[in-house]
């Protein structure tokens, strides 16, 4: 009970400033639109966006599911590929020297160029969207994880060797845990962009998804619905960011073991 209260108090302290600022900005926006009497197909007031939200509550969840699935699959794929490539790059210096420039170049090909090509190659289904998300998310994870693996404490590796550790044991018990914080830092960045990547890919050609919903709303001059989609995209991005944050906490419990608090837990 006391614990629940203290969590609530902490949440209020952490999020109250952001929520208040958001409410103030929405208020300013609402009154600015009402006073200036600007046309709703140019700038809709927040209240109008809220009404539009109710109008589309039947069709929106389907689009949301598609985009969320594409983002989640793409993110998972980039995590697996990114971690695997990082292991290879950290393991072999020649390979790292050869592949790093290519990785950087791959990151500089504009997505608006790649996405239509992927649609041409793989059709209007989920696959090209998942691939766009993967292409975006892959790079931060490879870079961060490679760095994390290379920065593992050399003395720890040596200690393991002095006890006769095999290469696979060193990898499992020293290198991978050392690189986990870096891996999650990379994954966190990728998670923040995953939804955006899926939406951009849907823009080019899709049969379902928030990107398609936006294109349709735009051609119908329903700017209020565009804003609905933007709000949903923002919420989805925050949710995926939070999910990765939670996964990181669960995967690395030692990082949150405070000096005082956990001493207590040990005694219990």
């Amino acid at each position, binding site marked *: 009970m006391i614990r629940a209260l203290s969590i609530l108090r902490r949440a209020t302290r952490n999020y109250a400033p952001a929520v208040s600022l958001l409410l103030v900005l929405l208020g300013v926006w609402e009154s600015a639109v009402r006073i200036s009497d600007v046309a709703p197909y140019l700038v809709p007031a927040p209240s109008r966006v809220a009404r539009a939200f109710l109008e589309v509550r039947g069709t929106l969840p389907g689009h949301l599911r598609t985009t969320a699935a594409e983002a989640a699959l793409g993110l998972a794929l980039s995590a697996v590929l990114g971690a695997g490539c990082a292991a290879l790059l950290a393991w072999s210096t020649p390979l790292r020297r050869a592949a790093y420039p290519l990785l950087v170049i791959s990151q500089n090909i504009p997505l608006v160029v790649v996405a239509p090509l992927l649609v041409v190659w793989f059709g209007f289904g989920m696959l090209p969207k998942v691939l766009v998300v993967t292409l975006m998310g892959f790079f931060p994870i490879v870079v961060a994880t490679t760095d994390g693996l290379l920065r593992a*404490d050399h*003395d*720890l590796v*040596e*200690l*393991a*060797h*002095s*006890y*006769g*550790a095999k290469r696979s*044991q060193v990898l499992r*018990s*020293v290198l991978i*845990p050392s690189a*986990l914080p870096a891996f999650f830092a990379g994954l966190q960045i990728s998670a923040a962009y995953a939804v955006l990547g899926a939406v951009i890919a849907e823009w080019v050609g899709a049969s379902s998804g928030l990107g398609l919903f936006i294109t349709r709303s735009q051609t119908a001059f329903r700017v209020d619905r565009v804003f609905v989609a933007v709000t949903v995209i923002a919420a989805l991005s925050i949710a995926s960011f939070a999910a990765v944050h939670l996964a990181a906490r669960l995967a*690395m*419990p*030692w990082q949150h*073991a405070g*000096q005082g608090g*956990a*001493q207590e837990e*040990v*005694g219990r």
Partner: protein
Amino acid sequence: MGHARVGTMPDGRAIDVRSVSLTYAGRPPVHALDGVEIEVARGEFAALLGPSGCGKSTLLRILADLVRPTSGEARADSVAYMPQRDLLLPWRRVLGNAVFAAELAGTPPDEAKRRARALLSRFGLEGFEQAWPAQLSGGMRQRLALLRTFLAPRETLLLDEPFGALDAITRRQMQRWLQDVLALEPRTVLLVTHDVEEALNLADTIYVMSPRPGRVVARIPVALGRPRDAATVTSPEFVALKARLLAALDDDGTSGLAGS
């Protein structure tokens, strides 16, 4: 090229170092060790005493088979090496850290955990098996690193300034405690230290080393009874040995081998 061979030796010796020299290539080349001779009998507690940078740690690393000597031969029974830093794994709890070395050396996990649990209280870690290393005090971290070393299925312990990072009072407690633990779980020990009293509190034999390039300038047997407590430290024998050690340290090794 010299040798560092690990394996059981036939003649009751646990460590046998024969004219080991080590030079690090470079401009100018660094002479770390110069003709070091050390012999530690099985069950003996030997200390390597010398100023910082005299190559004491390097000699341990040679015995742990992490560095090869430039010339000479270093042989040792199966050794468990404990470096200066405690090197606990932050992502393993106390129990997991305790069994780390044993696990790598091939002890079955259940067996290692059972042995670790049996020793936890002896190492002052009872009730902390589920704690993370970050939650332990400096003394506890060091005891945990020692427990990890003890649990490795090895005959000889190579301890590199295990109490160097602790305050003087804690260090004194840990020295007393280490004597007790060794009485219970006997091992051959080669301890590196730059603390004259620590060497006298713990060792049967003290090797005094010169500044770089490290040479053994004196081998001094310590014929003090055990356990060595506060009364020992103020005894005339202790004071005389301390004077002899300090003289050997000041001497710089120009007069060659003394004592023995």
